[in-house]
């Protein structure tokens, strides 16, 4: 597709379960970002991938969170042993430029932890 694609669009899980969120960036975009948006809040940076460089994981809130980007394209954000405070919209963005410029966002995954 032409834009950033995220799946699933909605995910309901039980506390303690693991979840995987997927992001398909725009073809050719070398930079990929994950952000988290809690209800009524701004976006919180989680992790950044640029090409083959080591990812910037400085925004991950705990070691329960991890992300991978395979082949420089698709990325998966994994949350282990989910907690209720993990409930949020998880947004993926990609860019052809990096440096925080011209990010194109997907529609996000709404995660609800019961």
């Amino acid at each position, binding site marked *: 597709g032409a834009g950033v694609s995220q799946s699933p669009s909605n995910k309901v899980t039980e506390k303690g379960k693991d979840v995987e969120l997927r992001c398909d960036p725009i073809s050719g975009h070398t930079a990929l970002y994950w952000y988290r948006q809690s209800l009524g809040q701004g976006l919180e*940076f989680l992790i*950044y991938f640029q090409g083959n460089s080591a990812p910037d994981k400085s925004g991950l809130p705990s070691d329960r969170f991890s992300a991978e980007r395979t082949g420089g394209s698709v990325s998966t954000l994994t949350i282990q042993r989910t907690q209720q405070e993990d409930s949020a919209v998880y947004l993926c963005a990609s860019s052809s430029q990096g440096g925080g410029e011209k*990010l194109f966002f997907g529609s996000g995954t709404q995660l609800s932890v019961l």
Partner: protein
Amino acid sequence: GESVGLHLPTLSVQEGDNSIINCAYSNSASDYFIWYKQESGKGPQFIIDIRSNMDKRQGQRVTVLLNKTVKHLSLQIAATQPGDSAVYFCAETFHGNEKLTFGTGTRLTIIP
């Protein structure tokens, strides 16, 4: 730590009028600023950006103003339309930093 915030959480404007959304930032090292629009159920959409070597930049019906002296950013939307109703976020970063810092957003409602 650095923060980016908005003065008003909500703003209602009559259709056809102009609107101004304000944003304050605290990191004097920030040199790149962006406005995003987020409609319900969607991800943020890029509107316009500005670098710190400029104080004004215009797009289609939108203008961004940057005042580095007081660390203030504003988004002006001319001749507002119902489709302009959304949450607007300012974001900032600096050279060499890959992370955008977002404000909490202003909800703009256009009254028909």
